[in-house]
């Protein structure tokens, strides 16, 4: 049978779903060493001295390497001279925070970390540009000597395609604007990991490494180690997601190899999640200035672009990412001309890397936003506008692409049909609901001819004498399903059962030449080579069978060769071949693609790819005008992939890429402060969680492209291109504001809507003497105070993560079973914890973490929830999950708040007491910045100058801008809760409002712990509601509001509580509003007016978080709606 086009299971589904398949970090190797990397804390600095001798002398340290362990002046090859510029370890200069300076291998991870701290580096810090615009300013420090005429411009592309003058003349409507697609992280679930084993006798190294392209790893590692390419031997291992990140060598591969060579032992180097976010190579940020013109018919006539691409500090893949990005202007539509100038700009930030879509999503955001704007200007339906501009099939585009098949128009129609486009648009206009539809189109090649030999793929097939078949290819399946598709092809050509086909990938010794899985080339290149190998092997087998059976025609099916005279098992034919060895008949081929053109610096038009894939995505969004929250309600992703070889795998690529694109559209962004990534954790990186996404509906517009293997084109990258513009266009359709910088977070939407509605807040700080001191300090921050505190003040601090400080030993953890033992331990200095889920993480960043932790969870009396005398007594060790399950219906709003906290897993461990007591919420504080609260009084608050849009106080901020993170702290105040505090002698009960005396800081006496929370059970007239704005499901509140009131039958309110969370250092009570509502029959608008007045009177927002006042007022409106509803 043929498996082409069949929905078959992944061939390794059993081992993957049993958790048996081994990723690199799962490999058992009892004698391997653990590596760690010393990274630069500075964006740009000279290394005055580097002394590793103390680290080398530490017991258990087996190797330390620096740039001196590599040939002088050597750099990664990557795209070759003159672009090669990146040393394997910093050579006298560091150019970004996180750059690798030294690496160690030791017996344990703890020793390796201690060794890092024993390395002495003296830096001389230099100023350097951290953004492209700074880097282009006259007088900016040059990070490198480049070949262009402009300082800090690594590559300059300036091109006219087609007839620009004609396009210029024909344009009747012109739109112009600036668009930003930020730097986003791949955030692969498997951190980059390498296990390296050096063989001294043979001068070879074996690598088990998370890669999409073993050949490129061998290329770079062999070059840097000075050994032949074939002395670097990659082995097959499971790879946990790539998305481009793992398609070229990073640093862990060669560092592990060099450490193994020096130590003479195998070395495992696994990046931490913090390193993944903070030092890996993210998507290049593009700032695109675009002018697009169209004629009155809606035909696009000209694209004119000026683009800045943030290269980061070294040329990783920036030149080709920029090249592919600008191609967007001349590939999909058919204007008369396109003109662009594009600069790859050096900044002292981590180098950008390869990321799914490779420059196209960035430029596409600008193009597809402006196509919409033109449609609106012309009074055309945006989808119809695109249909008018679809380029023809079998034609050459402005950028030189020789398009084969294109079913883009069918994709657009599929979106129109799938979303019920016309009817819904009409309905939205009538209902004036804040809902909108958006569409965006895109195209992408099926493997770019980006390197020598990228048009070649070799593959081999083995037929064993037991009838099994093995495909061997040198690429790597990081989750794309490539191995399964290749097995489908081999099984179909050889007429064997799919279960009898296995695939060996990656192995440098046992697989033939292949450049790997990148640029969406897997299906075309290895699909073609494996198909060719299988067909030729099938021919051999048929000849053998014909001879044996005396048959004229032979077909292969069901594992047999069947002729008119009889049949024979395929395995039985192996021995009949002269070429068979050891019961195996192998056949190896080399597939060479004709007709494509390689990228070269001397040309500006190339036919890079054998076929081109297309897609149109449509989004239905709802915008909450009150909070700025954008929700995607429905999403159709229609793709022209040629023929889908495995529709389930194709749909997976479509939905997965669309989800990733929606993440970038709505939340994801790497945030930097002083060149250092701030949000180095999943907690602070708003990638979509399951509940954040709609049902994404993939549509395969099935076709057939004769130039692709079995009719197939590509899909992997295509799906991430349209979501950004599709969502931006839908938001515009919904509420009439055009967001041009991703991600479309609530701050941007609320700010744009406030402008649209003409709302302004005035806080009159000059009338409030109590705020003058804070206002004055804030004014001084940008005038040099921040610089002085950061540069000099932090040196006087407690030494958070400073060289020389010793990592804390693991704590002793006690779990007493009586309250007396618990309070005795606390009296002795132990830190009280609940489930420990926050404390264990936080202690990693504490300068002096408590040596002993004592948990409440073993004390039975603290594990109970008891209802008595009209009160609910909740033990501090009750988990959040248990609390949620036990709350009575009249406290449903408390349960809703609990459900919004973290994840179900955390709620199963985390306790009520621990939630109330958890550490303050600030991404500078929580991610290791040496801030005032962490490091001491001479250190700065990084939030003043840094990104404080979401997490920081807009009311009452003082020296520290952090807020109390506990949602319980907010909602339980609205429930009039009290807290019982216990110590070795005696206990006391205080209102919850008095529990906090600072952001996440408890007003406990020495030796005191939270023992119990007491919540009055509300009477029948009491109503409550809790609303929270968060960047993803389970995130801490960006803002939250809890409102409760006694509501009389006639609708009169009394005893009102309005508590705002994440707005001030501690939960903030809107007392004036609450008082004013007493005895009234409120309306939502009325409450909003009162609250706005109160907020304006008290707030003192930072430069960019004033929007939170609008958002929290919006949350209160939602809550008031709830109270009025019943």
């Amino acid at each position, binding site marked *: 049978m043929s498996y082409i086009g069949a929905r078959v299971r992944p061939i390794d589904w059993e081992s993957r779903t*049993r958790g048996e398949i081994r990723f690199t970090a799962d490999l058992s190797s009892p004698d391997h060493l653990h590596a760690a990397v010393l990274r630069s804390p500075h964006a740009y600095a000279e290394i005055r001295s580097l002394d590793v001798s103390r680290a080398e002398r530490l017991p258990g340290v087996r190797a330390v390497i620096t740039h001196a362990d590599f040939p002088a002046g050597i750099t990664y090859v990557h795209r070759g001279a003159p672009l090669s510029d990146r040393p394997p370890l910093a050579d006298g200069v560091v150019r970004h925070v996180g750059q690798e300076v030294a690496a160690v291998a030791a017996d344990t991870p703890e020793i390796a970390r201690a060794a890092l701290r024993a390395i002495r580096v003296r830096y001389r810090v230099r100023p350097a540009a951290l953004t492209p615009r700074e880097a282009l300013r006259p007088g900016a420090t040059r990070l490198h000597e480049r070949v262009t005429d402009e300082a800090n411009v690594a590559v300059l592309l300036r091109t006219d395609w087609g007839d620009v003058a004609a396009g210029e003349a024909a344009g009747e409507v012109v739109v112009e604007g600036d668009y930003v697609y930020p730097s986003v992280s791949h955030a692969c679930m498997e951190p980059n990991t390498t296990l390296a084993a050096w063989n001294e006798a043979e001068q070879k190294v074996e690598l088990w490494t998370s890669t999409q392209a073993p050949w490129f790893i061998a290329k770079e590692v062999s070059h840097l180690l000075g050994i032949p390419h074939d002395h670097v031997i990659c082995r097959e291992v499971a790879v946990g997601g790539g998305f481009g990140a793992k398609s070229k060598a990073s640093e862990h591969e060669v560092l592990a190899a060099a450490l193994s060579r020096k130590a003479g032992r195998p070395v495992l180097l696994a990046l931490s999640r913090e390193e993944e976010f903070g030092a890996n190579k993210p998507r290049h940020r593009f700032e695109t200035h675009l002018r697009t013109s169209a004629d009155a018919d809606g035909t696009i006539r000209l694209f004119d672009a000026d683009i800045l691409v943030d290269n980061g500090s070294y040329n990783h893949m920036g030149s080709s990412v920029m090249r592919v990005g600008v191609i967007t202007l001349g590939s999909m539509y058919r204007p008369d001309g396109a003109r662009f100038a594009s600069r790859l700009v050096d900044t002292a930030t981590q180098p950008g890397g390869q990321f799914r879509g490779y420059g196209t999503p960035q430029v596409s955001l600008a193009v597809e936003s402006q196509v919409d704007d033109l449609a609106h200007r012309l009074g055309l339906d945006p989808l119809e506008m695109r249909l008018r501009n679809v380029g023809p099939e079998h034609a050459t585009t402005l950028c030189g692409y020789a398009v084969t098949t294109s079913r883009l128009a069918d994709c657009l129609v599929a979106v129109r049909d799938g979303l019920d486009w016309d009817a819904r648009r009409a309905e939205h206009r009538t209902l004036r609901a804040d809902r909108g539809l958006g569409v965006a189109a895109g195209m992408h090649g099926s493997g770019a001819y980006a390197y020598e030999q990228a048009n070649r793929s070799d593959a081999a097939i083995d037929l064993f004498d037991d009838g099994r078949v093995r495909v061997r290819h040198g690429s790597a399946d990081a989750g*794309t399903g490539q191995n399964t598709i290749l097995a489908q092809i081999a099984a179909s050509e050889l007429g064997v059962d799919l279960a009898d086909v296995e695939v060996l990938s990656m192995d440098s010794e046992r697989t033939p030449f292949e450049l790997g899985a990148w640029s969406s080339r897997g299906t075309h290149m290895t699909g073609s080579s494996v198909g060719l190998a299988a067909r030729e092997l099938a021919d051999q087998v048929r000849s053998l069978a014909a001879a044996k059976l005396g048959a004229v025609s032979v077909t292969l099916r069901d594992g047999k060769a069947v002729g008119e005279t009889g049949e024979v098992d395929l395995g039985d034919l192996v021995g009949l071949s002269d070429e068979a060895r050891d019961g195996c008949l192998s056949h190896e081929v080399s597939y060479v693609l004709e007709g494509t053109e390689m990228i070269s610096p001397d040309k500006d038009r190339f036919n890079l790819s054998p076929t081109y894939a297309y897609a149109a995505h449509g989004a239905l969004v709802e915008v909450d005008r009150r909070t700025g929250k954008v929700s995607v309600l429905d999403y159709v992703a229609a793709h022209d992939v040629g023929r889908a070889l495995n529709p389930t795998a194709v749909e*997976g690529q479509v939905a997965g890429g669309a989800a990733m694109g929606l993440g970038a559209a709505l939340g994801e962004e790497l945030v930097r402060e002083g060149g250092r990534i701030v949000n180095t954790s999943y907690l602070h990186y708003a990638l979509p969680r399951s509940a954040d996404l709609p049902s994404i509906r993939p549509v395969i517009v099935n076709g057939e492209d004769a130039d692709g293997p079995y009719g197939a084109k590509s899909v992997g990258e295509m799906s991430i291109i349209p979501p950004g513009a599709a969502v931006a266009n839908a938001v515009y359709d919904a509420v009439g504001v055009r967001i041009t910088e991703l991600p479309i977070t609530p701050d941007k939407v609320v700010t744009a809507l406030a402008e649209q509605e003409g709302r302004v807040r005035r806080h009159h700080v000059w009338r409030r003497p109590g705020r003058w001191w804070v206002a004055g300090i804030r004014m001084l921050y940008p005038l040099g105070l921040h610089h002085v505190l950061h540069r000099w003040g932090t040196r006087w601090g407690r030494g958070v993560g400073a060289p020389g400080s010793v990592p804390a030993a693991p704590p002793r953890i006690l779990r007493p079973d009586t309250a007396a033992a618990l309070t005795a331990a606390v009296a002795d200095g132990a830190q009280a914890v609940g489930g420990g889920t926050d404390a264990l993480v936080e202690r990693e960043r504490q300068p002096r973490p408590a040596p002993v932790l004592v948990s409440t969870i073993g004390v039975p009396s603290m594990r109970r929830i008891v209802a008595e005398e009209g009160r609910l007594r909740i033990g501090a060790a009750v988990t959040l999950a248990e609390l949620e399950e036990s709350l009575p219906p009249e406290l449903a709003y408390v349960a809703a708040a609990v459900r919004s906290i973290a994840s179900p897993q955390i709620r199963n461990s985390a306790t009520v007491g621990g939630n109330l007591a958890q550490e303050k919420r600030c991404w500078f504080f929580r991610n290791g910045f040496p801030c005032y609260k962490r490091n001491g009084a001479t250190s700065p608050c990084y939030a003043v100058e840094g990104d404080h849009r979401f997490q920081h106080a807009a009311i009452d901020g003082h020296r520290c801008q952090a807020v109390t993170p506990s949602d319980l702290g907010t909602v339980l105040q609205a429930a009039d809760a009290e807290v019982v505090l216990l110590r070795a002698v005696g206990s006391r009960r205080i209102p919850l409002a008095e529990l906090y005396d600072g952001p996440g800081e408890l007003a406990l006496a020495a030796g005191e712990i939270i023992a119990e929370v007491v919540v009055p059970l509300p009477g029948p007239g009491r109503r409550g509601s809790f609303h929270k704005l968060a960047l993803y499901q389970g995130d801490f509140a960006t803002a939250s509001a809890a409102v409760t009131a006694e509501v009389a039958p006639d609708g009169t309110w009394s005893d009102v509580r309005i508590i705002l969370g994440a707005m001030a250092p501690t939960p903030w009570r809107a007392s004036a509003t609450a008082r004013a509502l007493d005895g009234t029959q409120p309306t939502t608008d009325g409450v909003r007016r009162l609250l706005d007045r109160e907020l304006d009177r008290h707030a003192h927002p930072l430069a960019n978080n004033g929007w939170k006042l609008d958002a929290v007022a919006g949350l209160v409106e939602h809550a008031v709606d709830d109270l009025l509803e019943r």
Partner: protein
Amino acid sequence: MSDRAPRAHEVELIVNGRRVLAPASRTLASVLRDDLDLTAAKVACGRGECGACTVLVDGRPTMSCVTAVALVRGPVETLEALAEEVTDLREEFADAGAFQCGFCTPGQLVHAAALARRADELVAEDDLPGVVRDRLSGNICRCTGYQAITGAVCAVLARRAGAEVPS
């Protein structure tokens, strides 16, 4: 390892039905992976933020990377022991395309196993896909967009509860 009495700072755990002694201050994830070679649970963040390390403790999905051994409050089950129980989930995952790279899959399946034990109760909810998406929001998947995971879990829950499979 399991026959002797616990030493100071050691705690007795029941892992997949087996008695195990482990240092009290270590994380459960490191004991499972490094000492017991139970590597199905992955460590992808080490901060309890991604769900790749999910195991069941006393039947409840738990982040093993931020759970100190001393604070484990019940028997531990990992995917190695749950694989047979969730054969239907595993097959549905494979049919639906509910994993690509498979790194988060053990955590997803362990969490789904806990949901499947409550199939009757969950299927009675109004919006089963919404409930499943909520429950699985602590398990990050970067490959699939969650679409197929949600579909597969809903299908199995419905089947186990003898209900119709929601579309």
